[in-house]
């Protein structure tokens, strides 16, 4: 610990902290623009200049380390004049006319900084030089005219996402932000995660759909959790007048630095699919709107007329735990349906449960990826299926990080990691033998040198982690999986099994069939919600007798269904999700819908009432009991 004074107030702070940390710890505030708590200090904007006694010049507090005995002053004539000068220069350089910009009036850090310094005009007339505007991207616009060159976006793209798409071109006042080596964003390596847009302090990178739809303070902020995959990123759902405006990552939640991927941020807002608005029954080939009462009676009659093997059911993993539990109770326990399946053909969650019976709690939290200095990824495409978990590995470019991967198909994980060994195929045993050293790594490919380096580095790694995905975590690989976990224990590696889609883990614990051998049946019910049916379940459903589907949208599954029930979507229903690493997260309702829209759970309750059944209310104990037996704290 070291001692400093900030504006004559003594504070004690850990060695290695910056002057800015000390200022904030002492309860003072200096304005910053390029600095962001999620990013490494950079020192680009010079707005945080402070006086340090004995120093020849003003010091940028965000990058200067605090030293013992330092006397810091944040609010002197000199610092105030410097801040005004910095802001005057920034405003003079480009088009910072607030009235043209959607980020005005509260949403712009540059404007706020000017207010803070009491600036009510620009002492230096702007240069009026036009800069490049990139409107090629479907989700956001890059307007270099509003850029202050703070590089928050570039640092986010590199440090946090690990994609390294954004960079700067030219020098001095001509500097502009570019993608790759000057490609349009739409043609670049950009993965449309939008994290750069969220972190931009001005209106240089802005969201197309939410632009001019209201200021931050006009929007209702609902902290929630993404339920597109089982990583469970925290996000803030922003609505206005009961309408979805934008989704942002939740910086406050401190999970994966508030990152989101395209599926979590843009896909739900861009969604243009046609909603099912009311129950529909097919009569003489035509869909006729009917009342809920009639639809539910038809449903109940079909269930009554058939029993056991004649009933085939399937539910999508995007449904909350409450619903999955009720679905199991209703169809498996009460009706003993022939099939109570979870869509997706991904049994990784069930395999994890199986392995936990033998090994006890053997898995780690996702944070293990952050700490890892070496990763072995077996049979998973983290970038495609669990993108933000992929960020946690691929952003380790600048560190001495090693990636060893066996993947069924080539994928984009680790494109910027130099020390890596990538094998394409599904002979996991082969790779394991190589990794464990029982077999020599023989390859004369161009990448062989990096592969050997990776293997050497894995042996020396302090925090190795082994990630197992759906192609490896299958029943037929049980022996190899056992060997993998034993190997992991021998090298003190942490293990993560990536479990299916959103709520697969909960589905597995409730005993739903995760890799069903789908069969057509005289009556079939598909609780699809706002998800997408997997090909196998779709085929079996289409070949069934009486086809009932509860779907939010018209799609291939509603195309020839006999009874279609509308369904609430993700932001219209509250519910719990069990993430791949056993965190029980709450997805909050952000939108209220009319009463024609019902959730799957509500429909199950309605049907229970009709059949005189009572579904048990407790869905949680089963989950919490199981989680501790599989995931280490």
């Amino acid at each position: 610990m070291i001692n400093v004074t900030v504006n004559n107030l003594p504070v004690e702070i850990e060695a290695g902290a910056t002057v800015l940390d000390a200022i904030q710890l002492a309860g003072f505030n200096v304005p910053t623009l390029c600095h962001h708590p999620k990013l490494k200090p950079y020192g680009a904007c010079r707005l945080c200049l402070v006086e340090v006694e004995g120093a020849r010049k003003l010091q940028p507090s965000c990058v200067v380390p605090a030293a013992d005995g330092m006397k810091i002053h944040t609010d002197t004539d000199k610092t105030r004049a410097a801040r005004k000068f910095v802001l005057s220069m920034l405003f003079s350089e480009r088009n910072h006319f607030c009235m043209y910009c959607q980020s005005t009036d509260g949403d712009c850090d540059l404007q706020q900084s000017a207010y803070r310094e009491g600036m009510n005009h620009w002492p230096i007339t702007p240069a009026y030089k036009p800069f490049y505007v990139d409107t090629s991207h479907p989700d956001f616009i890059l307007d270099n005219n509003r850029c202050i060159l703070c590089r928050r976006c570039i640092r986010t793209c590199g440090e946090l996402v690990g994609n390294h798409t954004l960079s700067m071109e030219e020098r001095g006042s001509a500097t502009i932000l570019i993608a790759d080596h000057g490609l349009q964003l739409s043609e670049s390596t950009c993965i449309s995660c939008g994290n750069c847009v969220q972190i931009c302090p001005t209106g240089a990178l802005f969201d197309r759909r939410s632009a001019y739809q209201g200021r931050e303070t006009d929007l209702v902020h609902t902290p929630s959790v993404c339920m597109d995959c089982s990583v469970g990123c925290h996000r803030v759902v922003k609505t206005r007048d009961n309408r979805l405006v934008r989704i942002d990552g939740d910086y406050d939640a401190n999970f994966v630095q508030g990152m989101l991927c395209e599926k979590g941020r843009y896909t739900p807002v861009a969604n243009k699919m046609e909603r099912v608005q009311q129950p529909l029954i097919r009569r003489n080939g035509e869909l006729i709107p009917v009342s809920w009462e009639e639809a539910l009676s038809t449903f109940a009659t079909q269930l009554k007329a058939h029993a056991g093997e004649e009933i085939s059911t399937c539910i999508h993993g995007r449904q909350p735990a409450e619903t999955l539990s009720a679905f199991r109770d209703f169809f498996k326990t009460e009706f003993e349906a022939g099939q109570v399946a979870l869509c997706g053909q991904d049994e990784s969650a069930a395999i994890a449960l199986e392995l936990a019976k033998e090994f006890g709690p053997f898995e780690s939290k996702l944070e293990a990826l952050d700490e890892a200095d070496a990763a072995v990824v077996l049979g998973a495409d983290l970038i495609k299926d669990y993108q933000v978990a992929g960020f946690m590995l691929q952003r380790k470019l600048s560190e001495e990080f090693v990636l060893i991967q066996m993947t069924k198909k080539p994928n984009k994980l680790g494109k910027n990691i130099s020390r890596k060994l990538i094998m394409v195929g599904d002979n996991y045993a082969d790779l394991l033998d190589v990794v464990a050293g029982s077999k020599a790594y023989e390859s004369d490919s161009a990448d062989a040198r990096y592969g050997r380096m990776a293997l050497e580095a894995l042996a020396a790694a302090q925090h190795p982690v082994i990630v197992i995905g759906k192609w490896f975590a299958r029943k037929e690989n049980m022996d190899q999986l056992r060997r993998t976990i034993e190997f992991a224990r021998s090298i003190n590696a942490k293990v993560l099994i990536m479990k299916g889609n959103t709520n697969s883990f909960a589905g597995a614990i409730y005993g739903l069939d995760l890799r069903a051998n789908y069969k057509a049946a005289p009556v079939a019910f598909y609780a699809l919600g706002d998800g997408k049916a997997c090909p196998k379940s779709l085929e079996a459903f289409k070949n069934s007798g009486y086809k009932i589907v509860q779907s939010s949208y018209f799609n291939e599954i509603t195309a020839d269904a006999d009874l279609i029930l509308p369904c609430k979507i993700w932001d219209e229903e509250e519910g719990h999700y069990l993430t791949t690493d056993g965190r029980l997260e709450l997805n909050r309702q952000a939108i209220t819908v009319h009463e024609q829209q019902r959730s799957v759970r509500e429909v199950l309750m309605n049907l229970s009432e009709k059949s005189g059944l009572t579904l048990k209310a407790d869905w949680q104990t089963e989950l919490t009991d199981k989680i501790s037996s599989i995931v280490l704290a």
Partner: protein
Amino acid sequence: MAKPKVASDWLAGCAGCHMSFLDMDERIIELTKLVDLRATPITDLKEPDEEGVDVGILEGGISNSYNEEVAIKMRARCKYLVALGDCAVFGGVPAMRNFCGAEAALKRAYIETESTDESGKIPDDPELSTTTHVRPVSDVVKVDIFLPGCAPSADAIFYVLSELAQGRVPEVNDLTNKWH
């Protein structure tokens, strides 16, 4: 003591700031008890008194030689000059044309618009003022009080004028410093 005299005029703006001034509603009566409202674009008297006024208000930026003249005359005839609104303070919306130049802007407006036929031409009457780079008022004459906003709220305008009328310099605060 005589009431302080106030005169206003508009330059390259949209008149919105003057509308916002009127938006103070019945408080305008209160204001006239404090000040002697002289020439404004919305009253009969159009030019500030030759013997001078206490407060001059200018809305809009400087976009041509005529705006320059008006600004210089107002500055010469007032003790305190207020730049009212984002155009007067920063250049505002008309300053957008600085990015392409007046030539291109005139061509677009008088020749290239979808509703213009082949007879379209850029006005070139010698009596017309000369188009210039669009500038904030403070680039041409000294400004004493900046009141940004697009438009500044009626509350802000009322506050600034009533403070000036009572011999005080208005504060730069959340009310008076709101850019849009």
